[in-house]
Structures are given as structure tokens and as C-alpha cells.
């Protein structure tokens, strides 16, 4: 993390030879880190999340087994610490003898991938649409906002489920569906922020100086609207992981034998009263990941929301 370098707020001031912009950026980062690190939970969340990222990146090196190799004679083996368990399968095996730990490690890749893709798509589409609505107002704004109301009138998971029914089950389609369902939140946030900023003097000044609409939208206004969007992005990262896992659980997301956590849970359901570990660990992985991100999200909100900083 780049922010860890700027732990000491004074470091930025003592910078030699750096331009003024670099100093203010560093100072701003330092200020951000100061407020962020005030929230102990957020820092813990950050560490856990960083660990999950490392696990996901290094999955082939860390995983003791292949996530797809079926070990004959090791079906539904309990975790190592149980009497029937074996230390070569630390968290036990599933119904076809695949190592649970290795599948969970590879599953981290899918969950992070889902989060990154869904949030990137939802954020970029949402920001553009929201900018257009908030900047131009009038009929185009009304049409856009009514469309967003329509999307928001459905329970998100139901709409995602139906969209996947149209597109066909699978991880990619599930991600598209979830991104579409999440995107109205960004549109609304961006629009509200743009409407707040548009009347400010610096925008008028830039307009008088001859800035084009595009420049005003993306260069002048947008950078001043990012705080709520960053917080929303963190929160919807975790929602994306949860929804994708839910779709996987319902059989509409990633398809077996993909080691996606929700899909693993769906496969494990029939063994629920016989083999607790195949049900417990994938869900625990989802919970820990989502919790870590939400902890970070809370910290981000505290650090970026000037209203809360006062208290």
C-alpha cells in the first residue's frame, strides 16, 4: 500500500525538491491515513484484505493440492484435527475427494476477481451516466433517473437472478447482472454530487475560461465528487461478492467444478448433516472476506467524510 509510507504526517512537509503538488498530495494522503488508522477495525480489515489478496495471487504456490484433483479413497475426509482426519488435507475433503483448503485458496481469486470487475463496470458506467444526468439536467436527467428507479424497484438479487436466466447461468453473466443491478447507486451518488458542485464558483470560473462541457464534467467537477463514490465502491465490492456467492449458491453463478465459494456451498448442501466442514469453511471464507472489506469501508467513510471528522 502506498499509503503506509506516509504514516508520519510531517514526512510530507520535510520533502526536498518535490513540487508543491506532490507535497499537497502526500499531505492529503497522510491526512487520509491519519483518520483511517484512527479506526482500529479498519486497519484490521485492511490487513485481512491484504492477506486475502496475497493468498489469491500466490494460490498456485500456497495451495497444497490442485483444486480439481479428486483423491480416491479420501471422500468427505474430516479436518485434520478430527480423529478420522489427515494432515495432508488440513480442512478435509469434499464429496469427490478434492482438498477443501486448496479449493478455498483458489476461490479467493474468483471472489476478488468478481469484486474488481463488478465494481469497475458499475463505477465507470454509473459515473458517466450520473455525470450526464447531473450536468445536463432537464429531460435527459428525468429519463435517466426514471430508468434507475425502475431498476431499484426490483429486489437486487431477484433482478440479477432473472437477468442470469436471460443471459444463461455462468460467472461472467452473473457479474454483468450484478454490475447492472448496482450501477443505479453510483448514478444517484454522482448526480447528487455533481448537482452540488455545479453551481460553485470554481466551475463557473472554468467555464468562463472556456472549458468544454467534457472538460468541466470530467476534469473540473468529477475529482471533487470522489469521496462518496470511493466509500460506495468499498461497500459494493462486498455486496458484489455476496451476491455472486448467492447466485452461485442458487446454481445460477459460477458452475461446478469452479471452486467459487458460493458454488462450493451449493454442492455441499446435501452433506449438511453428515459433513459439517464442507458447509462451514466456504461460508466462513465469504464472511471473513466481506467483513474485512466492510471494516475497511467504515474506515474509508470516517476518513473521507468531512462531516464525521469534526466529532
Amino acid at each position, binding site marked *: 500500500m502506498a499509503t503506509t509510507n506516509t504514516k508520519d504526517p510531517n514526512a510530507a512537509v520535510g520533502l526536498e525538491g518535490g513540487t508543491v503538488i506532490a507535497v499537497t498530495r502526500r499531505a492529503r494522503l497522510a491526512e487520509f491515513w491519519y483518520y483511517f488508522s484512527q479506526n482500529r477495525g479498519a486497519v484490521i480489515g485492511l490487513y485481512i484484505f491484504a492477506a486475502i489478496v496475497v493468498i489469491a495471487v500466490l494460490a498456485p504456490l500456497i495451495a497444497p493440492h490442485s483444486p480439481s484433483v479428486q483423491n480416491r479413497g479420501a471422500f468427505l475426509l474430516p479436518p485434520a484435527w478430527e480423529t478420522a482426519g489427515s494432515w495432508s488435507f488440513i480442512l478435509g475433503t469434499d464429496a469427490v475427494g478434492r482438498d477443501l483448503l486448496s479449493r478455498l485458496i483458489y476461490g479467493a481469486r474468483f471472489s476478488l476477481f468478481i469484486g474488481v470487475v463488478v465494481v469497475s463496470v458499475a463505477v465507470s458506467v454509473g459515473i458517466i451516466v450520473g455525470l450526464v444526468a447531473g450536468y445536463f439536467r432537464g429531460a435527459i436527467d428525468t429519463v435517466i433517473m426514471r430508468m434507475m428507479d425502475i431498476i431499484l*424497484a*426490483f429486489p437486487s438479487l431477484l433482478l440479477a437472478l432473472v437477468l442470469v436466466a436471460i443471459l444463461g447461468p455462468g460467472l461472467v453473466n452473473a457479474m454483468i447482472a450484478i454490475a447492472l443491478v448496482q450501477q443505479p447507486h453510483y448514478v444517484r451518488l454522482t448526480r447528487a454530487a455533481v448537482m452540488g458542485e455545479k453551481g460553485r464558483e470554481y466551475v463557473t470560473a472554468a467555464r468562463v475560461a472556456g472549458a468544454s462541457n467534457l472538460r468541466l464534467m470530467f476534469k473540473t467537477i468529477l475529482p471533487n465528487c470522489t469521496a462518496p463514490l470511493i466509500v460506495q465502491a468499498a461497500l459494493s465490492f462486498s455486496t458484489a461478492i455476496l451476491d455472486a456467492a448467492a447466485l452461485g449458491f442458487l446454481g445460477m453463478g459460477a458452475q461446478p467444478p469452479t471452486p467459487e465459494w458460493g458454488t462450493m456451498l451449493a454442492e455441499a448442501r446435501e452433506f449438511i448433516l453428515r459433513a459439517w466442514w464442507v458447509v462451514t469453511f466456504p461460508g466462513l471464507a465469504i464472511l471473513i472476506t466481506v467483513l474485512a472489506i466492510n471494516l475497511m469501508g467504515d474506515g474509508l467513510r470516517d476518513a473521507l467524510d468531512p462531516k464525521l471528522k469534526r466529532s
Partner: protein
Amino acid sequence: MFRFFLSRLALLIPTFIGVSIVAFSFIRLLPGDPIMLLAGERGMTEERYQQLRALYGFDQPLVMQYFTYLTDLLQGDFGTSIVTKRPVLQEFLTLFPATLELSLCAILLAIIVGVPVGIIAAVRRGSWLDQSVMGTALVGYSMPIFWWGLLLIILFSGILQWTPVSGRISLLYYFPSTTGFMLIDSLLSGQDGAFRSAVSHLVLPTVVLATIPLAVIARQTRSAMLEVLGEDYVRTARSKGLPPLRVIGLHALRNALIPVVTTIGLQVGVLLAGAILTETIFSWPGIGKWMVDSVFKRDYAVVQGGLLLIAAIIMIVNLIVDLLYGLINPRIRH
């Protein structure tokens, strides 16, 4: 107030039309021939195909098709299930009480626990109580409820054998459905143990469905309460020497509840999305499970109708919340 009501109602109309367009397009966007999808028949003759095409109105221009669809909707015709051949609305009305009962119990649990917990956390801000309560709330908020349900089944149905795994009531009991609410019906039936059985079936799904709304309500109550506790009028009430309970309960709470009511209203969508997962896990015969089953059975007429009905419910509840909000917060009316 009446004008406020009318203006909110007027806002709903374009949304409802939009929602109906989404539902209308759904069948037409699916891969495959919509007539085959709607009729659920395979290998039909050309003559039969043309007959169905005319029956469903697919020989008409698209605008006319939508117009017919909308007219049917307004007359209460939401289509016919391909699998059961029953009207979609009738199926919906049979199953909806189960979802309503479960959702009502869940939101009640969430309010009864969430609001006091949020108040206590705010009043004791920064204490270990506040930290542990809010920590728990964040865990609840992050919970994959489909997994949470399975865990509870392992513990309470598997190991402890306290609760049944699925359904609304034990098969030992049978009585006609008068209200559709199993808790009330079982009481009315007068059969020994029927109510107990209904309760034991309801407990786990209620807890699972209540988890996320409970966490959200607790967090929202706490932050609303914190904001209000810092206000001047609360300080005035305190300095007048009013007892703390009176200040918190009367002066602070009433104002803090305004955003909380909105939050509770917003949970309807969360509840219905949660019902999809909860009902699937506990084989609860409500509309959530009905929708999932219909997607899998490719009963697209049901999916189309159900989608619209569920969106309509959410819109109506949101309208009621809006009105309530206007009622408790007069400033918003203008």
C-alpha cells in the same frame, strides 16, 4: 397532506409502466422462441404453432402486444403458469401469505432487537458494550445468509434436534387455511401442539431473514441517536434536570426515529431478496422459493408475472413509507 400523497402517487406511475416494460421484455429477451417458452410444448405442428401465436398475440405489432399486456394486467390477468396451468396471480396470492408471515416476523424481530440495541450503543458510546454490539452488527451485515441458515440447521436441527429442517408446520397437523398465516391458523384450528409446531418451523427462517435488517437498523439507530444527542435541545433538556431516561426516550428518540423509519422501509427490498435465499434453504413455500423454482423449471410466465407483482409490492411499501415519513416529519411535505 393529500397533495403530498397525490404527488408521490403520480411519481409511481412512470416507474410502474417502466417495470411493466421490463417484465414484458423479459419473455422476448430470452433465448429461444417466446411461444415455445410460454406454451412449454415441444414438437408442435405448424398449425398449433400459428394457433398459439395468435392466442398469445405474437402476430400483432410489438406496441399492440404491449398494450394488450398492459390491459390484461390492469384487469388482474398476470398470465398463466406453464407448469401448473393456473393463473399466476392465483398462485401468487396462495403463496404470498407465507412470505408475508415470515417477513413480518423477521422485520419485527429486527426492530424489537435492533432499535434498543442501537440506542444503548449510542448512549454508551465508546464503551466495550458499544464496541461489541457494533462489531456484532457489522458481522451480521456482512453475513452470507444462505450459509448462516445452513449453520443454524446444522446446530439446531442436526446436533440439538430442537427445530425441524423445513416447511411451515409438521405433516401431523392438517387444517384449512383461513388467514394464510400459519401462526394464526394453527391457533384457530384448536389442535393440540399445532401452534407450537408452527412456531418451531418459523424460528430459524425468521432469525436468518432478520439478520441483515437487524444489523442495518441497529447501525442506523445508533448513528441517528448520536447525531440527535449532540443537539442543543437535548442539552437543554438535560440541563433542565430531566431524568436521563426521559431525555433519551422522549426528546432524543422521537427525532432519531425519523431516519430509522426510512431505513426500516428500505428493508422491504432486502427482505424480499433475502426471502429468495431463506425460503430456498428452509423449503418455505413462499414467493421467493416460487420464483427460484420457476426460473429452474423455465416457467417463464410465472417469472414474468412474479417479477411484476414483487416490484409492485416494493413500490407500494415505499409509497407508504414516504407517506409515513411525511407524517412524522412535516418539513418534508413541502
